[in-house]
Structure formats: C-alpha cells, structure tokens
C-alpha cells in the first residue's frame, strides 16, 4: 500500500472519528427516547444521561474499528437507524 493511500485512509478514518461518530451518537441520543418504553419524563432523562457517554465513546469506537470502512459503516448504520426513528416522530 502506498504512503498516499495510507494517508488517504487515515484522513477518512479520522473524519469518521471526529465528525461522523459524534454526529451519529447525537442522533442516537435524541432518537432513543422515542423507543424507550417508559414515561415521558424518564425518556427525557434517558436522553440526558446517555448523550455524553455516547458522544465521548463514539470517536474511540471509530478509532478502534478494524478499518475506516468499518468505522464509516458503523456511523452510517447508527445514523440511519436514528434518522428512521426521528423521521417517524418529527413532523
């Protein structure tokens, strides 16, 4: 693998960790209350409690992925699922 290819993969990986993963974590946090079977107040509480650990852990998980493609796949799957839930809830 050439140095250029390695660097390109590195940038993609870094972007997944720095931009994609926190955004996906944020989307999951705001979508989660819609699927938690509890009272409204508890659902809000769940969002408040999970948002920070999720956003802090997501970049680490992206960096720990075996490849940039896997990191992006994780980001896209999580974001897609969250957006699907939000699409059903938001007008």
């Amino acid at each position: 693998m050439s140095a250029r290819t390695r660097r390109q993969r590195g940038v993609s990986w870094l972007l997944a960790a720095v931009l994609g993963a926190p955004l996906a974590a944020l989307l999951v946090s705001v979508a989660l209350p819609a699927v938690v079977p509890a009272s409204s107040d508890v659902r809000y509480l769940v969002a408040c409690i999970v948002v920070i650990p999720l956003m802090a852990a997501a970049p680490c998980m992206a960096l720990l992925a075996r490849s940039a493609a896997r990191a992006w796949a994780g980001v896209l799957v999580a974001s897609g699922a969250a957006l699907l839930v939000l699409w059903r809830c938001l007008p």
Partner: protein
Amino acid sequence: MKLGSGTYRILWEAHAWAGAVASVLLVGMFLLGVVSLFRHELMPWQEPRLRTPVAADEARALDTLQQWLDARVGKDGPSQLDVDLPAPYSPWLRLEWKERGGEKTAVWVNPLSGEQAPERSDLGYFLFLVHFLYPLPGGMLIAGLVAIVLLLVVGTGLVIQLGRFRKDWVRFRPREALRTAWGDLHKVLGSVGLPYQAVIAWTAAIICLNSAVLQPVVVRTAFDGDVDAGLKSIGYPRGAKPSKQPAEAPRVATVLARAREALPDARHYRFSMRNLGDAQAYVDVRGYARQGLHEFTTVRVSGKGEVLHVRQAGGPGATARLIESAYVLHSGLYAGMGLRLTYALLGIFSALCVLTGNLIWLERRARDMRRVDVLLARFTAGGCGAAAFALAAVFLANQLLPDTLTRRADWEHTIFFGSWCACVLGALLFPRPKVWSRWSLAISGGILFLLPWLDSWRNARRVFDPAGSPYVFCVELGLALLGVLFLVSAWAIGRIVPRDPRDARAPAPVLAHESP
C-alpha cells in the same frame, strides 16, 4: 497499571491533539467562567451608580416599582417586563423589556427617588453568556462539543497518568529542559484540577447539549410533540395567552407576599411579568432556595393575586433535577463565596493547564512542522492570547466608552468579539505567532493591572479603598491579580529559547518528561 507502549502512544496523541484543537476555545471559556462566577459582584464596577448605597427598604422599592407600572401599563408600556429587585450588590431596581421592534431595553430605577437611568453596561452578564458561547450562532452546541472534547482530554490524561499521580503531584523541575519543566507544570496543574475539570466538563456538556439539541428534539420524541407537557416536566409550564380584556398592572407587593407565603424559605429576586395590561396577566416570581444541588424556585401569581403554580427547588421530575443539579454544580451555587473562590482558582489552573499542554505539544512538534501543524500552532497561539486580550479590551471599553453613546452595551460586545478575532487573525498573519501570543498576554496583563487606577481617576476616588464599596475593592483586587498573572505568563513564555536550527530535522526524542 502499566500501559503498553502502543496504547500509551495512541492515548498520548489523542490527548494532545484533542487538547490542542479545543484549546483555542477552552482557555477563553475557562477565563470567562472565572469572571462569570462573580458576575453579580461585578455590577457596581460596570455601573458606577450602583456603588452608592440607597436608603430605601423593600416596601419603598415596591412602591416605586408600582408607580412605574401604573404610569405605563395599559398605555404605551411593554407587555412583558423583567424586574430585578434590589440586592446588596445592586441597590437599584433593574427593569428590562422588549420594544415592539424586538429590541431589548434595560433601565435602572432608583427605589428611593424613582429616577430612571439607561443601563450603561451589561458586562458581567455578557461575559457569562459568552462563557457558554451563547451569543454566537450555534454557540451552545459548539460549547457542548468542546465540553465533550474536554471530557475526552481529562479521561485520556487520567489513564496516561495512572500509577504516576503520587510521583507527579509534587515533581517540578524548573531547571531541567524547557519541555520537561512545562510537562511537570502541566501534570501538577492537571492532577490538582482533574476532579474539577471532569465535573465542569460533564456538567457543561449536559447544560449546553440539553439547551441546544435535546430540549428542541426530545419534546418530539419523548413528549409526542406536546411542548406544554415538556415544559411542565421541568417545572416551567407555559402561561395563559392574552384575553384582549384590559386590566390594571399587578399589585407587586401582593404578588411578593403570595410568593413568600408559598415558599417562605426562598429568596425572591425577580419578577417576570407577562401579558401586562391584560386580564390574563401573571407574574413569575423567581427565587433561590439553597437545598443541596437544587436551587431555583418559581411562584406564578396571577394579576389578581392568586397563586397559579409553585415550582419547588429542583423541579417536579428527575430530568429537571438532573439539569438543575448540573447547572448548580457547574456554577458553584451550592455553597458560599469560599467555594466560588476555589472554583476561580481551579479555573485559572485549568486555563494554565491547557496553555502548558499546548506549549508541550508545540515543543514536541517543533522539529518537523508540516503546514497543518504550523497553521494549528498559529491558531492555538493566537486563540490563547486572544481570550486574554478580548477580556482586557472589553473591561477597558467599559471604562472609556462615553456614557451617552447610543447602544453602549452593544459597542462593548462588538469590541470584545472584534479584539478576539483581530488577535487570532494577527497570529495567523504575524511571522512569529509565539511573540504575538506573548505580547497579547503582556498587553492584556498591563491593561488589567492598570484598570483600578483608571477607574479611580475617572470616578475621583481612592484606588483599593477598603472603606468604599466592598464589591469595587474586590473587583479591583481581582483585576490586578489577573493582570499580574497574565504578565507573569507572558514573561514565562518569553523564556522559551529558539531551537537550534541544526536540530530542525532531528528525529523527535523520547518524551523527556516521561523518563523516570
């Protein structure tokens, strides 16, 4: 626990890069946070008319307020009005409302004579808002993200330092190589401030992300779009809409009496009046009731004097209690002045910790700077100096702008942001960013140190006069100390000797400060 060299290196890089990128905002947020802790005590400094005590008791102040309301409500007066009642640091009544064009107007009213004067400056409150980046578009979200980065930096720093705490707590070697000295100082400041930084980062993330993202979206996902239910869950239900039936102004003495009956232990400090001049008028009486990490109370009283809603400290549900605890923990409101002074000291330590971390990072990369490194180095150097420079510039503007200037407070805000941006841009364009940053700090320190003398000259009084206003005396002391701190920091940065050009391409050595 001993980390593998690969893991250690990854954690070190993550710690350094995240800290360096976020440092541009972090230094400023810590410094502004320190100032925000004393935003109430700053009022007599920013508004000299508040320095003289006013011999008016509560009944007299309420009577003056009632006369003000009766003269305006139902005529050309505002329909929404916020009134801050006299307090030890501000013996005048402060009234704020929105004009028909949406522009905010704030005035001070003397509770004894009824004299009305336009607000000269909102310096303390403005710096409090900038601490959360609130005035910037999307600022609260950015502040939330910066808080999470800080949490990441603190977490990686903790793991890197595991097993070394006892040794590094007291190790400082100023006579060793420069990077070693910076590294020691960084670790001492980081170890001492670690619990504080972790709490501040966690609570800031909750406050900012909740306000910027969670509240607007979660009301759809958790409350099925019912905004009223969402607001009720945190204890601030929406008020009634105007009925278009005219009515007199609420009787403020009755309103305060009802609030005291409902919550006798709270200190009621503000009236938030809505639908003034309408039969559906109501007043939210805001209060403080120190109950551990729960603080804020509200009693809603109708225009006719009936209690409509009571919010106990902490609010009705678990979420309200979590958010309020985060805010109270972040602001140090759960104890007295001693805690706030400790917070201020730890805040300054944290700003210095970020700064020393930045210097280590720059020193380590100085041997092989790529274009992105040079840009980031200039940006971070400019950002760290800019925070101090903007702070000094806005305090100087508060002294020098003419009192008769229209929209004077807006001018102060513009000067703050203008000097911040100019300082960052200067570092990007100036050939030697370290020199730029050093001079920014030195000039800021000089300005802050001289400010007490400038104020005493302008107001024809003795400087550092303990017999005068205690608030002004403490602010003078604080400004002079901050000025000295900036001057010492500028001197310390100046001690960085230029690297020998012959070493410029040498491979980066093993971290000197990590050696046993």
